[in-house]
């Protein structure tokens, strides 16, 4: 491989590293905003780093009935999520990995993570894990058609499923608001809330058994395994936020490897993510968690919105 190819792959590793390092910061920012909105003294923005460090140094306590699936699941989940984040352009488009795996592979990798998370939930043989796994698979299976319809709309607009190509197409297109893209944005936001387990679908801060989905599956984890599960959840949240920001509001993203362009991209992205995080915190404070059997209706609405977006593209021929 030429030196440029080596450099490009090094850039991919740096990209994954940047994602991994920023994920706890983003979660901390959201928690800080939520606390401020709820009139509480906010924790420090870097508190999630401290939590992860603490968890890594703690002992792992396994249940008697834990099998090898329980022990390897955190590694597979973090690995699949890390590979998924490598596909999503963060501050620069055109990394070699974008040609290697497209948006459908992204959905597939996230589904792989969810599969092993549900298996880990069922592994111990308690009711919490089974319940969490069952609900997670229901939410995930109903969210996937909506997610795919969003990807289809974007792929039809850009004539490619390669995420770099989609972003470049958005950058080049005139600043007209296309209805298909607007509908796709609304649908993606709804799907992202469901997939990352935020209010109103799932409460990330609860420890009441009947109200948890994600927490129920990782209930038996401790120590470094729990740290990895938490990190995977934070990564997934950052991944969906970056998807929303970069696919629909890509201004500022760098198309070259120039340091000035990258710096500008970092500042632009931080600003955009800060706004999205604050909006998410405001939404979580204003809304209450739905009953679990309202979630299929919610996801059906997301699917219908995405479908309308796709139809408006098809009928208006590029809207």
């Amino acid at each position, binding site marked *: 491989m030429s030196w440029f190819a080596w450099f490009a792959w090094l850039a991919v590793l740096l990209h994954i590293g940047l994602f991994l390092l920023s994920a706890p910061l983003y979660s901390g920012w959201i928690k800080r905003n939520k606390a401020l909105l709820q009139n509480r003294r906010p924790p420090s923005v870097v508190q999630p780093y401290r939590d992860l460090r603490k968890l890594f140094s703690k002992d792992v306590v396994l249940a008697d009935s834990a099998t090898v699936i329980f022990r390897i699941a955190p590694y597979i989940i973090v690995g699949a999520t890390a590979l998924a984040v490598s596909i999503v352009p963060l501050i620069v488009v055109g990394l070699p990995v974008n*040609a290697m795996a497209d948006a459908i592979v992204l959905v*597939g990798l996230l589904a792989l993570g969810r599969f092993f998370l549900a*298996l880990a939930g069922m592994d111990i043989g308690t009711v919490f894990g089974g319940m969490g796994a069952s609900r997670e698979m229901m939410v995930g299976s109903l969210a996937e058609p909506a997610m795919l319809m969003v990807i289809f709309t974007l792929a039809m607009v850009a004539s490619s499923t390669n995420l770099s190509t989609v972003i470049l197409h958005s950058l080049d297109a005139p600043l007209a608001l296309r209805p298909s893209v607007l509908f796709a944005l609304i649908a993606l936001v709804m799907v992202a809330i469901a997939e990352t387990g935020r209010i109103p679908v799932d409460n990330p801060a609860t420890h009441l058994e009947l109200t948890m989905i994600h927490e129920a599956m990782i209930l038996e984890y401790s120590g470094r395994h729990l740290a990895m599960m938490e990190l995977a959840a934070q990564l997934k949240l950052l991944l969906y936020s970056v998807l929303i920001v970069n696919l629909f509001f890509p201004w500022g993203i760098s198309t070259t490897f120039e340091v000035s362009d990258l710096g500008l991209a970092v500042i632009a992205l931080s600003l955009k993510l800060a706004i999205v995080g604050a909006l998410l915190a405001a939404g979580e404070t204003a809304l209450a968690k739905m009953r679990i059997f309202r979630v299929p209706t919610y996801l059906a609405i997301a699917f219908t919105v995405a479908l309308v977006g796709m139809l408006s593209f098809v009928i208006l021929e590029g809207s």
Partner: protein
Amino acid sequence: MTSPDFASLQIWLFFAFGASLLSALASLLGGQRLWVANLVSFPLLGISAVASIMIGILSLTGAAEFATELPIGLPWLSWHLRIDPLGGFFYALIGVVLLAVSLYGPGYIREYHRQGKYSLAVLGFATGLFVAGMQLVVAADDALTFMIAWELMSVSSYVLVAFEHLEAANRRAAFLYLLMAQIGAGLILLAFGVLAAFAPDFSFAALREAQLPGLWSSIAFALALLGFGMKAGLVPMHVWLPEAHPVAPSHISALMSGVMLKVAIYGFIRFTFDLLGELHWEWGVILLIFGSVSALYGVLYALMQHDLKRLLAYHSVENIGIIFIGLGLSVLFFASGFPLLGALGLVAALYHTINHAVFKSLLFLGAGVIVQRGHERNLEHMGGLIRRMPWTGGFFLIGCISISALPPFNGFVSEWLTFQTALQATALESGVLRAVVPITAAILALTGALAAACFVKVYGIAFLGRARTRRVRHAHETNGLMIISQGLLAFLCLLLGVLPTTMIVALNGVSGSLTGSELSMATSRGWLWLTPIAPQVASYSAPLVLLGIFLALSVWGLVYLALRRRRRIQPVIRRDPWDCGFGSLNSRMQYSASAFAMPFKVVFDPLFRIHEESERQMDDRLPTLPARISYLIHTDDISWNIFYRPFYRSITWLSRQVARIQTGHLRHYLAYSFITLLLLLWLVT
């Protein structure tokens, strides 16, 4: 080139047929002797399998097409045989599954030998004939040979389904299977008949040249769809599948679900793409509708099953639906004048065909191990099997991941290809089609996600957790050959997922010979990249994704090791699981399969006919304390109510109306005779 003998298809075809027929004969002569089955019959089936794989490899790598005429058959129509790339591909499929089954069989039938209730001779004889019938169907080059081979396949598989005939339920299931197989064969015969009406004789070469007017062409297509669909298991003709596949011996279920359904797909592809030739876009839409409905229906019913083999049978219905979605897209694009996209659809459908053959056989073989060692077919009684059967558990997990279409295994590649085909719908002119195709893709996404949910349920309930009954708690791992056979199929799942370009090159040959168009850009970036349409449109590099996963995992391993040395982490502590302080949990307090499927039951309720029986027995001493609670849930297939019951009710009504002429009075019968006589006299003059 090597000696012309072994590079030609002729010698391998001879080996394939000869070995399977010899295997049947050997079993018949061997009687109840186990050594005959283990040392003669199954190795002969293995030889037949290797020969079939060789036929496939030779045919797909460009060996000359082989056609011959056997001196048997009718005086004016002898048996024609021909192997072209399409036939070669299906031979490879048959060979791969048969190889695994021939390794698995000896260990499995030991159980029947031990019980002594059923005849091993009949089992071996019917298996050999079944395999020979399937091989003959794929090689047939005229309608007569095709039908004879088809019937041989159907009747021998009936014998196999009815093998454990001492139970009435098994006999009923086998009878239903035979009935529907015969109806399907009748429809196929009619389809060939329509074609043959416009051709000089029955050979495929003549049928191919037949020029049919549009209406008859559509009638032939409809008959072929119904006939082959009945054997393949398309909704609503699938009702025999969930009855017949569970009652057959597990290695036969693997053969039926993995291979026989694919032979029906072969028949359909041969009839539509090869013999009919001229495709219409309406046919593509019909195929899409049938495929989507089958896929969704199959997976939803699979979610509600708690019998492991019945669940796997419903998943076969789902995957046949997915194959038909690919075929429908292919027909749609070919008929609209986009041969490259049509080839893409065909390649996606064929890729899914071989994927399903491999992972469904793997799952059925694993289920057979559970049935044989744990003596359980009911998911609600299993649990914790991964500790008792680590190898079977590992390979079954690979099968579950593959069928859920997750990277890096093979199910994902065929689903990726189908999605890429559907995404090209923007090329079509009709706005309705451009909207309908993405909706079909969304249904496909829904079925993929529901399949993943179902297999989380299957694996989590059967292999993880704690054993729910005593027999499962004491189950043992199987013997070496059965593990090797499962490992072979699991390795193939990985191989087909990580090296898709090799398979695509082979399928290009099939598509080229069948329709004349190939995916020329598929390997334009080298063997590591799969770029079916063009590199800038979509690309997937499976080996690099696999490498990436390993990279991510190894980085984490390094981090872990670094932390370990620094923090001097203690060995892992084992404790009881979290029980909220209420005390000891037993294995009955786990989530059950019905509980796992409950959210899906609530969401999709109108599509099922569910019978629930709940019984609560209160304690004598304290009326509010339940002493015993029992819950039974059973899901009925609504196809019976929607399609079959009105059908036979109307036939019964019609017969009753006709029966009115039987009044029982002699004078009325004399009047009938008199009137008939007058009528005949009038006709004669």
